[in-house]
């Protein structure tokens, strides 16, 4: 773990802020969850979420602690294209908008992304998809747990292990109490906090240093960061675009919201969230270009954001940064806990173990799963394994392989289970190969290209003639014979 001597808040202040926000989030989780009686209320917030909360939850979930940490890291490593490339993550939200409408009309009683894959492509493709989804979900959870520990340590000096543990406990507790309703409700408040905090930090950076000086200092010390033809950065741009699309198209975090939003809200909410999200990596990332001007010696690239904030801001500013980071972390962590528990509950427990489980049983099991997910994440996060950026990009190989099977499966009758299975399998394997043989910045790119080729060839060689009505499965009739 990196030791940062520039912590600008003392540990006591850090603990006080953590305690205050823990109390707020947990109270709200209890408040919004106290009337939750049905499984649909707990898993999907009653399937009636409006435009404001819908937009905010999509936006907040996509602004992860990784955005706060990794956007400045990529700006430091890849310069202008690092920020723009990360910003292209918004395309995933924007492209998912029309899919939400299609998903709601084709799978009106669905709970998870796994439901669609099972009904569309059959059992074996569904199982492979679950494996990919679980690798991604656990990887993202680890990434965020680690980010929480690192950031709290950087800003307050609180030990990495303590910070990471507290963040996980808080998110597990309020998700447990309120389900998706608590997640979406807190997301709205967290979105406002994140946006206001990021704005303050950016404005202070501009007023303290200014674009002229920042540009001049970068030009003299690391001119390649200002080069629009930096090859690795251009590859990163396309890679990140595909990574973002893959993450959103496959992950149950986004599908569960598609099912949770009120009829007619989903498409508009995702579109607006994408537009609002797009500038965040630039606003949060460009501050890393001030490293030269500030004379900072950055021990690890993923520490650059907090270090610049620590250097630039006084006590009040440091508190704001801490709250922003804590909010962005919580808004994603809670969403992932809820969505992953839904996936395990619906697709593994109900789909494979107990198809006849009652609503009450399922709610009880959902809570057990949330706690177990928290414990597993905590255990894996205890040692800091890899830099955050690398860990995140490693998952690109997995998720990019799902883009074409999902998109084709939603719109094209010819898409078939053999093609979808091979596309996900070979796409993921080739992406992993590219990750280790070439670099992290091409893993998603290679995976998506291989997956696309297989889906297209399979539709040409062995076309299916799928009947869309088969996706309209009644929620209470999850059939064991289909699942098993």
């Amino acid at each position, binding site marked *: 773990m990196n030791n940062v001597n520039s912590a600008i808040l003392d540990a006591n202040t850090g603990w006080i802020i953590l305690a205050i926000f823990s109390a707020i989030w947990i109270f709200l989780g209890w408040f919004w969850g106290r009337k939750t009686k049905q499984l649909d209320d707990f898993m999907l917030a009653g399937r*009636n979420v409006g435009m404001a*909360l819908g937009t905010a939850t999509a936006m907040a979930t996509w602004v992860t602690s990784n955005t706060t940490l990794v956007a400045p890291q990529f700006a430091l490593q890849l310069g202008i294209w690092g920020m723009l490339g990360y910003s292209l993550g918004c395309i995933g939200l924007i492209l998912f908008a029309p899919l939400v409408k299609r998903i709601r009309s084709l799978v009106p009683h669905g709970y998870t992304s796994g439901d669609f894959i099972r009904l569309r492509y059959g059992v074996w493709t569904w199982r492979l998809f679950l494996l990919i989804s679980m690798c991604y979900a656990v990887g993202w959870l680890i990434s965020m747990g680690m980010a929480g520990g690192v950031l709290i340590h950087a800003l307050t000096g609180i030990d990495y292990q303590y910070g990471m543990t507290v963040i996980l406990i808080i998110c597990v507790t309020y998700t447990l109490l309120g389900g998706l309703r608590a997640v979406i409700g807190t997301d709205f408040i967290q979105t*406002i906090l994140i946006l206001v905090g990021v704005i303050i930090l950016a404005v202070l950076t501009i007023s303290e240093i200014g674009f002229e000086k920042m*540009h001049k200092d970068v030009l003299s010390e690391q001119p390649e960061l200002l080069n629009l033809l930096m090859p690795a950065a251009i590859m990163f741009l396309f890679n990140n675009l595909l990574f973002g699309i893959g993450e959103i198209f496959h992950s149950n975090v986004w599908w569960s919201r598609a099912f949770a939003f009120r009829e007619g809200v989903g498409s508009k909410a995702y579109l607006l969230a994408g537009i*609002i999200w797009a500038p965040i990596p630039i606003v949060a990332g*460009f501050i890393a270009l001030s490293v030269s001007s500030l004379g900072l010696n950055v021990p690890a690239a993923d520490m650059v954001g907090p270090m610049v904030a620590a250097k630039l801001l006084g006590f009040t500013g440091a508190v704001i940064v801490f709250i922003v980071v804590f909010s962005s972390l919580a808004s994603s962590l809670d969403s992932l806990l809820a969505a992953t528990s839904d996936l395990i509950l619906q697709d593994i427990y109900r789909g494979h173990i107990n198809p006849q489980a009652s609503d009450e049983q399922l709610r009880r099991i959902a809570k057990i799963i949330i706690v177990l997910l928290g414990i597993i994440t905590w255990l894996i996060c205890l040692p800091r394994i890899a830099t955050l950026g690398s860990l995140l990009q490693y998952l690109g190989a997995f998720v990019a392989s799902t883009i074409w099977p999902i998109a084709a499966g939603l719109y094209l009758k010819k898409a078939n289970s053999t093609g979808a299975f091979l596309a996900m399998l070979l796409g993921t394997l080739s992406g992993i190969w590219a990750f280790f043989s070439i670099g992290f910045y091409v893993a998603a790119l290679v995976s998506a290209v291989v997956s696309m080729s297989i889906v297209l060839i399979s539709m040409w060689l062995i076309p299916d003639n799928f009947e869309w009505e088969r996706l309209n499965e009644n929620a209470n009739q999850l059939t064991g014979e289909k699942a098993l």
Partner: protein
Amino acid sequence: MIVSSGFLSVMVTIALTVTIIAPIVLVILWIKDWKKGQLW
């Protein structure tokens, strides 16, 4: 192909402007939904 400081400032200023507008839009939407009883 090195970008100028003007390019950098325009890019960041546009991004910052959209980010400043975002919370205002969200609060307006919240008020509209709340008045109609359609928050969730």
